[in-house]
């Protein structure tokens, strides 16, 4: 049994290391608006979006283009993993406030992303 511990630990460590290496973008929800409303991410890479909801009410992040749907409770934060994406624009919105809470993920080439950051 002991000999199986090492590969398993290695697997967990590799997964954790891969997760740590992911580009992270933080988006704040305030007064039912996204800050920033446009997020630039590298194409071809998995990205971790961290949503921080500063409102008292919950918000549900929804994106048909990214195939993601996640409830962010009031005064809480949550993560959504997206990608790897092709270069282009992907809209997302707050399902509870679709008129105001609108945002966009812009996937650019890694070179353009590195230059921008």
């Amino acid at each position: 049994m002991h000999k199986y511990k090492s590969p398993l630990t290695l697997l967990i460590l590799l997964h954790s290391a891969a997760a740590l290496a992911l580009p992270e973008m933080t988006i704040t929800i305030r007064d039912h608006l996204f800050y920033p409303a446009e997020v630039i991410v590298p194409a071809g890479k998995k990205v971790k979006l961290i949503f921080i909801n500063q409102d008292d009410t919950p918000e549900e992040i929804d994106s048909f283009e990214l195939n993601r749907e996640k409830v962010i409770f009031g005064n809480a934060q949550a993560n959504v993993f997206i990608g790897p994406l092709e270069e282009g624009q992907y809209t997302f919105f707050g399902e509870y406030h679709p008129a105001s809470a609108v945002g966009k993920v812009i996937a650019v080439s890694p070179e353009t992303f590195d230059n921008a950051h």
Partner: protein
Amino acid sequence: MLINTVVLFLRDALPIFVLLSLLRVYASPKWRHLLAGVGVGIMLAALVVANQHTVSQWYQGSGYELLKCITLITAYMLAAWLIIKEPKHVYWLAATIVAVFVVPRSADFSVFVVGFWFQKDALVPILLGTTLGLGICVSVAVLLDVLLSSVTKSAVVRTAFALFVAGQIANVILLLQQIDWLADPGPLWNMGVIIADESEYGHLLKVLIGYEAAPSSFYLLTLFIALLLPLLMRAIRLYVQRNSRSKPEYQA
């Protein structure tokens, strides 16, 4: 807020009403069994909503998605069992499927209602929107019930039921990709120009057959396996049963 409530109610409640119609035609349970299932499901969802912050923080913020995955997988396994065996005297099995299926759906809508209930001027649109949504859901359910009841071949109803549950379980793939428990290989194609996910047809097809305009290979594979597996297992069971019956009986 009114339109928003209708849209959210339809998104969360329409699959429940479609399931009720399909179960009623396929397994012929009594309404009291199905309604008991809905009641239990709503009570369990209330428990989830009451502990929403705790649940959502499980497994580094993946708790809510994992809970949805567990309920979807459980509901699928019970529904698959219903497809494999003869759908006779399965009232409580049908009720259990409904109860498990209702939990994530009603929890999602409850989060919205609870979150905005005490907001100024929100109560009337929420109640009105829920009533309108309820009316649309009942209409669709009755229409589906009448349509399926008129079908004489039970295989058609069984396939429709299998397709519905397969479409629901395929959502597990999207949930696991969202929390990074599963890689996202990207879409195989994009049919968004023909039927967009956000269109009315897209929503309806999503509920009925798990339609995705841009599905990944994982999603499609799960959908097809989940559809074919119970139908295949049923065919094998019937084949074995028929063969064992047709064997000549030797008497001593």
